[in-house]
């Protein structure tokens, strides 16, 4: 793969890669390191892509694997509690002076709540939820994780119920506040 082709590959999956990195690392400097580690892993693995899986699942698999190693390193160096941003920056992209529509605020609040709840989950569960939120199908998640599709469905169903609880709680808090 040429350098241009590599840059194009990263460009095609920039959003998904950024979300993986953002989720796993809160500290800006460590996040840049993780970003570089993901790029190095993709660079090294590029020859192994033979089109047997989709490019997206191949990229996500490598990114999540590098992130898992990053988390293990954080566990080793006692940085484990810092890996997820305390407050996800989901509400800063409105033009100055413009009031964000209520439904957008609600959606972002729901995402914030889910991200908070995600932090309490173990790593394999978080991987499943992140892949599902990324829009991957059951078959794609099974391909990335190596689990059977049945296993993915069962686990995700349980996790979705738990996370729906988090969103209901958010709604209840809003009602209470009003």
């Amino acid at each position, binding site marked *: 793969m040429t*350098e241009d082709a*590599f*840059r194009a590959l*990263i460009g095609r999956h*920039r*959003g998904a*890669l*950024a*979300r993986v*990195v953002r989720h796993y690392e809160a500290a800006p400097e460590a*996040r840049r390191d993780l*970003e*570089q580690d993901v*790029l*190095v*892993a993709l*660079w*090294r*693995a590029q020859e*192994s892509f033979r089109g047997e899986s989709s490019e997206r699942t*191949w990229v996500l*698999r*490598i990114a*999540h*694997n*590098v992130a*898992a*190693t990053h*988390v*293990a390193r954080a*566990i*080793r160096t*006692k940085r*484990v509690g810092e890996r997820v941003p305390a407050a*996800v*920056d*989901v509400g*800063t*992209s409105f033009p100055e002076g413009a009031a964000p529509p209520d439904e957008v605020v609600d*959606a*972002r609040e*729901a*995402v914030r709540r*889910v991200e908070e709840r995600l932090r309490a989950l*173990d*790593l*394999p569960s978080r*991987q499943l939820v992140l892949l*599902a*939120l*990324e*829009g991957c199908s059951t078959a794609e998640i099974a391909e*990335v*994780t*190596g*689990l059977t599709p049945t296993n993915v469905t069962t686990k995700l169903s349980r996790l*979705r*119920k738990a996370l*729906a609880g988090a*969103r209901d709680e958010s709604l209840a808090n809003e009602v209470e506040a009003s």
Partner: protein
Amino acid sequence: MTTPDGWDELGAAFREAAAGERDAFVDVDAAAVRARASALARTVRSRNLRETLAAAVVVAAGIRLAWIGKSTLVQVGGVAMALGALVVAFVIARRGGSGPAPPPTAPTSEVVEHERAELERQAELLQRVWLWYVAPLLPAIVAIYVDAFRRAPDGRGTVVALAAGTVAFLAGVVVFNRRAARALRQRTDAVLPRAPRPG
């Protein structure tokens, strides 16, 4: 079509929420990535070399002590030091380094399992530091202190105090490492739980 629990909407909002991360993975310098990949391999090689050199220094010191020692006890202590250092180096080389990691293209469950096993192995090493680090060096320490005790009738109090200090230090090493092992296991269990046994 939307899902009853609003999952699709949540996913869309999640993907949209990366708005604050637009500077990530922009202007990728492929040459820098390639250089970093090579540097990583060099770092691993130089770390292995450092560990080997550190062990070689202690082995050499032990052999020298055995060679120039005026009493049998010191000579025995020197040999024990060299052998102890070899045992420690062997354990570090055999169990201290990372095992063969799955390739980055492996299924994520495989990588998670590998990382968990690595952390458990490191906790085990910390937990058993008395066995592979303290015990192999103990015969040399005992031999050297006993020799000093026998050869200095007037300074035995000092030798005993130094020996007590060494024992306290080694006990501290053991306690500190056992605590570190326990803490590492707790952190590991919280993030990377054991996979349920089939059946």
